[in-house]
């Protein structure tokens, strides 16, 4: 089999369209993963044991089942119960929820890192819980979270081809469609790999830079 530039040029416009979908899916899914992950982390510190235990099992359940199965259930099974979602919506929700169980751990570690004395100082100055979170806890907890969160962003980007299985025409499926029409996999799939690398290698380098920049704030004792 020989590399054919005609195929490479012909598939390019579809791949670029697919890449846009892939990036959109990554952005929306990661926003869901971050916001939901933060909420899970906060509620996991709830005083209610019921809340803590149910969240523990919910996150375990989501994390211990394959993303592909979750995608199929949400896309193909939920309509039987009267819930119809667009493929793209399904995909970002599943991906976002799945990764929120991981990002919640990052948030929790970051929050745990802020000492109890900070809460007590905030309380002694009469900050209400919202003010303590906003002005004292999160500003200290967030910087060390940025590098691991950036790494999850890259991981989510690489998992987006799973959305192809529920009909989302992202980068991989765009290539796959071309391959199926013209019976050639070499050029489309090579280009898909190259596109993924072009985005993920610089992103990983940025994440490493962030890791150096956002060391936890020093506290002298």
């Amino acid at each position, binding site marked *: 089999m020989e590399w054919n530039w005609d195929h490479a040029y012909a598939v390019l416009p579809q791949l670029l369209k697919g890449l846009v979908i892939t990036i959109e899916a990554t952005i929306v899914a990661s926003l869901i993963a971050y916001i939901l992950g933060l909420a899970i982390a906060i509620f996991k510190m709830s005083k209610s044991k019921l809340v803590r235990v149910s969240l523990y099992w919910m996150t375990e359940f989501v994390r211990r089942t394959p993303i592909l199965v979750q995608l199929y259930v949400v896309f193909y099974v939920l309509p039987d119960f009267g819930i119809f979602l667009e493929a793209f919506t399904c995909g970002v929700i599943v991906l976002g929820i799945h990764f929120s169980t991981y990002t919640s751990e990052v948030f929790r570690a970051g929050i745990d890192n802020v000492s109890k*004395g900070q809460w007590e*100082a905030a309380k002694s*100055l*009469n900050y209400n819980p919202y*003010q303590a979170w906003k*002005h004292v806890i999160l500003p200290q907890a967030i910087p060390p979270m940025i590098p691991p969160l950036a790494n999850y962003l890259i991981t989510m980007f690489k998992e987006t081809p799973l959305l192809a299985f529920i009909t989302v025409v992202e980068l991989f499926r765009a290539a796959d469609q071309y391959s199926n029409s013209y019976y050639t996999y070499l050029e489309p799939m090579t280009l898909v790999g190259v596109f993924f690398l072009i985005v993920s290698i610089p992103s990983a380098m940025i994440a490493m830079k962030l890791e150096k920049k956002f060391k936890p*704030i020093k*506290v*002298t004792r």
Partner: protein
Amino acid sequence: MNNIIQFENVSKSFGDLKVLNKLNLEVKDGEKLALIGPSGSGKTTILRILMTLETIDDGFVSVNGEYLWHEKNNGKIIPASENHLHKMRDHIGMVFQQFNLFPHLTAIENVEQPQILIKKRSKPEAKDKAEELFNLIGLNDKKDHYPHELSGGQQQRVAIARALAMEPKIMLFDEVTSALDPELVDEVLTVLRKLASDTDTTMLTVTHEMNFAREFADRVLFFDAGQIVESGKPENIFANPEKRRTKEFLKKFINNVN
């Protein structure tokens, strides 16, 4: 003079450990009190209860004529709501052993932020107040430094300024020099002495610095096993303690220091 703080039969346990046992304590408005005694005797717990960092198991605590941990509702006395605690905390400020400055804010921002958020002061008002306090603590040249760029003694002075900026009626000092290197202790105690002589704020200090307690306090309380063993003017407690346990403690303490 009125009692600004009153403990009536207050008990507090941590698991099986009874830290306060039916404690009764009255503090007059403006009084400077030193709480001394062995570790685990419940001194710090008294401050933490007043700051609402610990709850009580039994009894009543009053601050400024109102129950702290209870409130009246249709003539009935019920446990305090978060709203009530919020209102009561306004009377009280605390300085901690570990300083607990906010590390992401500069020294002056540490003093400004609570005023802006809680006292609803404008930024310029908060800044004026903070600068006045930085003069008092003698750190005008360090006010734009972050806490990790300051020594322990400097951090603790900023923590004192932060608490003072809220203008509480009662200031609580919980072993504020215990985490400091010996050569940094004096700069903090100097600020406390100045406060004690210049303000009519009620001050409660848990301390192991006996010389400081002697000069600073109007009254010294010696604690052991969750109860006040002996209380009186510092000259009496230090020169002529009446109770055996007080004598033993002071003797041991002075021996340890020398």
